[in-house]
């Protein structure tokens, strides 16, 4: 949800202050421009950047597209190779796929069973013409946190740009672009209790990262992203960043407690529950659990008044189970049994307890209805069965 403080900051720019921030010649424009620049500084402060390095976009999807396609295309005369991972967000993977049709080569690094990349494999993947490494900071499905510090170091040594999709990390864990040697970063407004429809991209100035813009036009945002910046949304993003910076420590502590509560309660009451992704290197607010012998969508139906999601095929338009779970080596039947729980700034203890109670109740009920559970109780090894083709 949007933080009420964010809404407050936006309202004047949705009502009285409607000037175009790029209009240089009148007071309406100047007011809007001032607000936009203040927002830019707020975003920069959250990540230890200079405000001149922040470009407003329509969201992290656009930022990811800009980073990957923009950098690749700018340096294409000398560099044709990109490194990324198999667990990135669809927009990253799709951008890479689209570049492959343009003649670029992409290495999609596998991940270990805990969801983290192997740094040695990253080292080995560099080629003389690698222009970019893109690895997300926190994964949106399983919550694991990649070792961005180490990745940044490695990329510096190889003199390759490091881009990270930080949509799930910003404002939740401390990020510093200099500390972590990040050259490009994608930021999402609605993931940090800001408005939908806005995001930002951080583009390093020293050493200078060049990129070919995706959007042509009047040259706004340093020529990197033409189009009128939506002042109210930018203001909202800025406010969201400032609030996040203030609340980060408290939020993290509270969310960790709630997450611990949820996982402990469920696992103590229900056997055969697996947590997907590393237990340590993670953001606590994104928990992915597999409930063996129960299919994900059927469990979600019982919890329809809670906003949850599943890696089950039944919940995807393509009927394919989650590729992230497949990448970490989850057995296919456990992929179909997975549920992602998101805990945030506004999640209450009552909500967690309600979700836990309903979850336990319905897992038990669905297991009673499950032929797989029955077979396991009878001592049958499911892996020994010859299932019918369908």
């Amino acid at each position, binding site marked *: 949800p949007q933080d009420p403080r964010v809404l407050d900051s936006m309202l004047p720019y949705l009502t009285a202050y409607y000037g175009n921030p790029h209009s240089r010649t009148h007071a309406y424009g100047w007011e809007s421009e001032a607000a936009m620049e203040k927002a830019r500084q707020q975003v920069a402060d959250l990540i230890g950047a200079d405000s001149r390095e922040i470009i407003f976009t329509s969201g992290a999807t656009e930022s990811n597209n800009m980073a990957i396609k923009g950098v690749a295309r700018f340096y294409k005369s000398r560099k044709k190779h990109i490194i990324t991972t198999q667990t990135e967000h669809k927009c990253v993977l799709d951008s890479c796929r689209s570049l492959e049709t343009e003649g670029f080569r992409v290495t999609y690094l596998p991940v270990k069973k805990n969801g983290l990349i192997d740094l040695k494999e990253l080292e080995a993947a560099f080629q003389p013409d690698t222009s970019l490494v893109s690895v997300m900071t926190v994964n949106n499905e399983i919550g694991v946190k990649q070792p961005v510090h180490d990745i940044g170091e490695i990329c510096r040594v190889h003199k390759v740009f490091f881009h990270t999709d930080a949509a799930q990390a910003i404002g939740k864990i401390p990020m510093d672009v200099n500390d972590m040697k990040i050259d490009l970063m994608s930021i999402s407004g609605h993931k940090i209790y800001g408005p939908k429809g806005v995001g930002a991209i951080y583009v390093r100035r020293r050493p200078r990262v060049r990129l070919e813009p995706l959007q042509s036009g009047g040259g706004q945002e340093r020529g990197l992203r033409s189009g009128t910046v939506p002042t109210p949304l930018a203001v909202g993003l800025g406010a969201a960043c400032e609030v996040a910076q203030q609340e980060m420590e408290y939020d993290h502590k509270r969310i960790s407690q709630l997450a611990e509560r949820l996982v402990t309660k469920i696992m103590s009451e229900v056997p055969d529950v697996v947590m997907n992704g590393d237990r340590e290197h993670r953001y606590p607010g994104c928990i992915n659990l597999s409930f063996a*012998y*129960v*299919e*994900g*969508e*059927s469990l*979600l*139906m019982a919890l329809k008044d809670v906003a949850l*999601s599943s890696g*089950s*095929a*039944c*919940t*995807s*338009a393509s*009927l394919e*189970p989650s590729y992230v779970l497949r990448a970490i080596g989850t*057995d*296919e*039947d456990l992929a*179909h049994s997975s549920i992602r729980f998101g805990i945030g700034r506004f999640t209450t203890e009552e909500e967690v307890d309600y979700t836990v109670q309903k979850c336990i109740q319905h897992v038990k009920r669905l297991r*009673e*209805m*499950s*032929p*797989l*559970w*029955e077979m396991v109780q009878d001592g049958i090894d*499911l892996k020994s069965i010859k*299932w*019918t*083709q*369908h």
Partner: protein
Amino acid sequence: VAVGDAVPRQVVDHYENPRNVGSLDRNAKNVGTGLVGAPACGDVMKLQVEVDENGRIVDARFKTFGCGSAIASSSLATEWVKGKTVDEALKIKNTDIAKELCLPPVKLHCSMLAEDAIKAALADYKLKQDPNKEESEKKA
């Protein structure tokens, strides 16, 4: 989320109040058991029928690992086979199940699996009645 813009009321009903969940004695001669699907596909249905000496299905039970539509399809299947003869039950079509439950296109495979489950249960029952006949038919 392809659960549909609103999950069909009938599917919700079968999900919240499933009919005939459970098991029959698979070793009994007049019980046919069908197990179809695969965990790797996210859909497994077990359907059992109890047939009397007149070839009429007097009881049916199901257990399903699958989404709401899969559960509803197999639950409905057990309702429909009860009271039918074996041959009548073999005529149940997945399209009828899908229509009754208002399944969206993306969920049609659930109704197909339910039809497979019925056929598998009845085939198992038939095999138990006359295994020798099946054997000689296969050889011929």
